[in-house]
């Protein structure tokens, strides 16, 4: 087929394109994944029994707000990475700054504690389950996000995959916060961030394969 024939074929009766469709698709994907993850969380782990008291504590809100902010920044960044020729550097920097801010607060809490208490602030009692559960809860979010991304056109596949991973990990962490009995900032700075980084790394590797178009 000649190029002119291809053009004639593509140009005949072109369907009008809706504006803002890419962000909507991503948002729907994220929402669907998050609902699935929340259901999975409720059916397997369950919301912590003392939730009524927990919502009065700042520790609970920290565990919810940090991942929620990170997921928000991740979403904005991903919506840019999903379109050819858009720059997403500011969003990536915002995500790193959020992590850096959490670390700064965690280090100051750790340094202000009595030395015998410090180890417990980092290790808590549930670090294995916490990391594993966040990674598992991020799976439905990641799958739904990747499905939505495949409808779009990311041109930096590893970067987009990593961002989708970070977004999914953060969403998983925000959902897990409703179960998580830990209270320390250092615990969150280490294990929440480790789980999110792990999903981001997996996302970078998978993105190269799954996001090709």
């Amino acid at each position: 087929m000649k190029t002119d024939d291809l053009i004639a074929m593509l140009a005949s009766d072109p369907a009008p394109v809706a504006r803002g469709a890419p962000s909507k698709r991503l948002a729907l994907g994220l929402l669907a994944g998050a609902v699935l993850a929340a259901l999975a969380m409720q059916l397997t782990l369950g919301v912590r029994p003392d939730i009524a008291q927990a919502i009065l504590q700042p520790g609970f809100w920290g565990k919810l707000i940090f991942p929620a902010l990170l997921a928000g920044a991740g979403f904005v960044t991903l919506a840019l990475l999903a379109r050819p020729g858009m720059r997403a550097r500011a969003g990536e920097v915002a995500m790193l700054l959020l992590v850096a801010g959490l670390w700064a607060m965690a280090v100051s809490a750790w340094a202000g504690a009595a030395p015998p208490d410090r180890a417990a602030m980092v290790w808590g009692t549930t670090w294995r389950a916490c990391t594993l559960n966040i990674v598992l809860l991020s799976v439905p979010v990641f799958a739904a996000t990747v499905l939505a991304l495949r409808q779009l056109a990311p041109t930096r596949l590893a970067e987009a995959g990593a961002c989708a991973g970070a977004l999914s990990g953060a969403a998983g962490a925000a959902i897990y916060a409703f179960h998580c009995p830990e209270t320390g900032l250092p615990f969150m700075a280490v294990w929440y961030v480790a789980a999110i980084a792990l999903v981001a790394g997996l996302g970078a590797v998978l993105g190269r394969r799954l996001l090709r178009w």
Partner: protein
Amino acid sequence: MPRTNEAGSSVAADAETRLRALFLRGLAGEEAAYRAVLQALAAHLRAYLRRRLFGWPDDVEDLVQDCLLAMHNKRHTYQSDQPLTAWVHAIARYKVIDLLRAKSGREGLHDPLDDDLAVFAESSTEAGDARRDLAGLLETLPERQRLPIVHVKLQGLSVTEAAARLNMSESAVKVGIHRGLKALARRVGVLS
């Protein structure tokens, strides 16, 4: 040479303004504008790719077609306040890297491309021969995708007419076209 660069960049700036306006009208569903912008983009891409694929002149026309098909299928990802140059350049760059990676394995991984967005600086309307037979590829699509494309896109029937002739619903015709062009782009990607 500064003079050539200046001339080149003002040509590119004019092209940006003109093509962006046409492209936006094309996105709104205006057929003539969309055809004109695709033709101009094909000419720009041809010149751009010829310079970057000097080692593989035979691949240029195939890649022009790849890029056109990709731009059509992904046209909803263009944001109306974004320079069209940046969008087109990013797609062309992605397709070139994809091709080089497929061709030379590890060699393709180091990035041989500039970032200067010069895609509109020159254009060439002399189409080379595509080596790949898109018409042949079209034949490999399932009927429910191929026939809507043939009737609406190649023979110029309206969606309503094609639906009546094919005994399909109008939305099935539209879905068939949409999925068929996507499948075509995928098959093109597998071959190159």
